[in-house]
């Protein structure tokens, strides 16, 4: 706009000067040619122009400023040409010598209808240039004046706009790195304020979500850690990714450790488990299997294999839940064995009794010797049945807590002394040596005298039964450091396999199935001992080496009151 204005001013000024010059040149043109030539310099002075007189052929006849010799033909100049044709010519050209635009006005000098020459006025457009320059300088100043404050205003505005955004950026960076606390301070009500509000809400919700996730994770971890079942997660690379504490404990007992990042085969090398896993992968559905793990004391585990839901296809994970059912299986086995044993134990003497009675009925009764022998067998078997029922009754009443123990302070030496004579004949028959070693000044123990005697009878009975002829049985009683009187019965018998020892207290459990029955045991002796020891708050410990002998240690708590 400024440029347009400058241009307009320029053309207006040029027009004005042109009109002025045209008026002057018309007056001058009325003069005779010779007069003009003579009065060239005053004319130039008055008109403040360079005055040039040119003849009809274009040759410069006179010039107010320049030497004629230097000047060439002016006929081709546009103002002269225009003057020749139109009667008046004009042109604006840049003068190199003056460094300014020149306005040329040319007029023909006529004599009648014949053109005799031309007069040309040339005026440097100093005023115009000055006016235009001034105009430009105004313009520049105006522009400058306009730009500076607008820059300042823009800067201020931008700062006002940007600073909250910068604040938001630094805040979100902090949120990302997790060191932000609190919320953004909302300073305005405009769009930025709205953005800040939204970010605050987003961060709040995010925090809430993260907190919820952590809480959920902690809950899960706590649940996994505290649950009795073992949990194991396998990733899509078939590698163990996670296992909980219970499983670690279960596996540590079996000597399996450090299984993270291994495949199940590398970790367990268990055929049943691998087969279950393969079945799960083939079928896709959950798989429930029973596996046994470990070598010396295998444990039985119920394994449930299922997929971990809610994960994308390429991150499929498999979860295995292990439930230790070893105890359950053992109890089941004991129960099964018990029923089988009871029926067997009852049936064997019964079969004998029935068989011999039938033989007697069929006529053997008439032969006195045979009949007597048979009757003896029948009576023996009936007694055996009786003993069995007695033992079972004792056992069940102890188990049911129906037997009340009459506790008193007793001397263990007394009880041993009262029991040992019962075995004298049996020991003598097998020519067994019986050693007794009781340390002096043993404290009294808190016990039921009769039950105590029963415990010792059962243990000694076993020792005598299972020690071959010529063997040795020793019984000792000492006080140990932890406040127990320990009675030890050692024999040089056949011994018991290590794996059998834990099962010895089970009803009807026999380490040597054939021998024991031959020897007339009911299979309940140790079971009764075990229960009675429990009732005494004592403990029983059996050590044995096959072929070498067995040592049974009975620990009775000392009576602290020390009263006889």
């Amino acid at each position: 706009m400024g440029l347009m204005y400058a241009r307009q001013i320029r053309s207006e000024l040029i027009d004005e000067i042109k009109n002025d010059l045209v008026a002057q040149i018309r007056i001058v043109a009325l003069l005779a040619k010779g007069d003009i030539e003579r009065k060239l310099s005053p004319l130039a002075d008055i008109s403040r122009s360079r005055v040039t007189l040119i003849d009809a052929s274009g040759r410069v006849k006179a010039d107010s400023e320049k030497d004629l010799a230097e000047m060439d033909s002016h006929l081709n100049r546009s103002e002269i040409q225009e003057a020749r044709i139109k009667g008046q010519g004009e042109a604006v050209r840049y003068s190199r010598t003056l460094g300014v635009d020149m306005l040329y006005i040319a007029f023909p000098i006529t004599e009648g209808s014949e053109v005799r020459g031309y007069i040309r006025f040339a005026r440097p457009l100093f005023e115009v240039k000055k006016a235009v320059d001034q105009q430009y300088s105004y313009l520049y100043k105006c522009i400058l004046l306009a730009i500076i404050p607008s820059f300042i205003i823009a800067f201020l505005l931008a700062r006002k706009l940007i600073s909250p955004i910068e604040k938001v950026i630094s805040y979100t960076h902090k949120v990302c790195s997790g060191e932000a606390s609190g919320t953004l301070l909302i300073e305005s009500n405009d769009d930025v304020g709205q953005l800040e509000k939204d970010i605050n809400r987003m961060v709040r919700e995010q925090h809430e979500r993260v907190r919820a996730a952590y809480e959920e994770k902690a809950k899960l971890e706590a649940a996994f850690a505290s649950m009795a079942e073992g949990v194991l997660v396998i990733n899509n690379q078939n590698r163990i990714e996670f296992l909980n504490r219970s499983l670690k404990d279960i596996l540590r007992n079996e000597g399996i450790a450090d299984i993270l990042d291994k495949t199940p085969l590398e970790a367990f090398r268990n055929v049943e488990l691998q087969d279950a896993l393969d079945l799960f992968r083939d079928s896709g559905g959950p798989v429930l299997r029973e596996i046994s793990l470990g070598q010396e004391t295998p444990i039985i585990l119920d394994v449930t294999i299922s997929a971990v839901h809610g994960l994308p296809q390429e991150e499929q994970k498999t979860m295995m839940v292990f439930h230790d059912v070893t105890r359950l299986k053992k109890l089941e086995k004991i129960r099964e064995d018990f029923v089988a044993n009871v029926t067997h134990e009852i049936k064997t003497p019964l079969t004998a009794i029935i068989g011999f009675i039938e033989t007697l009925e069929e006529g053997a009764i008439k032969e006195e010797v045979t009949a007597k022998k048979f009757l003896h067998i029948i009576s023996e078997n009936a007694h055996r049945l009786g003993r069995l029922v007695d033992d079972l009754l004792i056992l069940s009443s102890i188990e049911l807590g129906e037997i009340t123990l009459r506790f008193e302070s007793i001397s263990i030496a007394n009880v041993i002394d009262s029991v040992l004579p019962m075995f004298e004949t049996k020991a003598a028959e097998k020519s067994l040596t019986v050693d007794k070693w009781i340390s002096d000044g043993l404290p009294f123990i808190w016990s039921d005298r009769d039950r105590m005697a029963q415990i010792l009878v059962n243990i000694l009975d076993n020792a005598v039964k299972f020690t071959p002829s010529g063997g040795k049985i020793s019984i000792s009683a000492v006080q140990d450091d932890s406040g127990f009187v320990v009675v030890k019965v050692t024999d040089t018998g056949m011994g018991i396999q290590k794996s059998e020892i834990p099962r010895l207290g089970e009803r009807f459990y026999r380490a040597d199935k054939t021998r024991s029955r031959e020897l007339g045991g009911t299979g309940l002796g140790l079971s009764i001992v075990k229960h009675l020891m429990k009732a005494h708050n004592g403990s029983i410990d059996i050590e044995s080496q096959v072929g070498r002998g067995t040592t049974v240690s009975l620990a009775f708590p000392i009576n602290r009151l020390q009263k006889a």
Partner: protein
Amino acid sequence: MDEKRHTSTHYEKELREVKQRLLYLGALVEKAIELATEALVDRNTELARKVICDDNVIDQLDVEIEEKCIRMLALRQPTARDLRFIATAIKINGHLERIGDMAANIAEKAIILSEEPPMKPYIDIPRMAEIARSMIKESLDALVKEDTALARKVRMEDETIDNLNEQVFRELLTFMMEDPKKIHRALIIMQISKSLERISDHAVGIADMVMYMVTGKIVRHGPTCQASE
């Protein structure tokens, strides 16, 4: 093998698959020894038949693993570590298959013995079986962990089995001298004892191959051979 990644994930997968199949074979074999011994001790012919029957699975797996290994040798042309692994896998595979056969043998003997009256309770045989089984377990653990110390330990345990084998031999000899009726049974038990001793030798073979795989040195026929003489 597992730490470094191959550019071909398929190759990587094949190598891993061979290792997994080998371990599965190992697990089957361990189980076979356990069950064969159980069948012998408990005079359980049904279990013994199962062990003999299951040897087919072991044989099939043996063929499968060997084919996989040979295909890899042909197609992938493995070098360095992978080559050693595949060579090891082929040999371990052979050892395991032989062990499987031994277990089946023991099961067969168990069936024969169950038809005759028991001579005496088995004490040393189950112990030998247990040691042999743990030797296999340890040698395969050594393979998993690439643990040369564990592999060396297996070599040491072989002596225990050899001693037990001799002990069983002497004991059975006295039985045979006492009662000629027991000769048949004693001879069969001797064969079982020998089988278990052979199993332990195969376990040592596996351990040696693990040593080779990890260190690149063949340690077979090492100094213990002379020491045990």
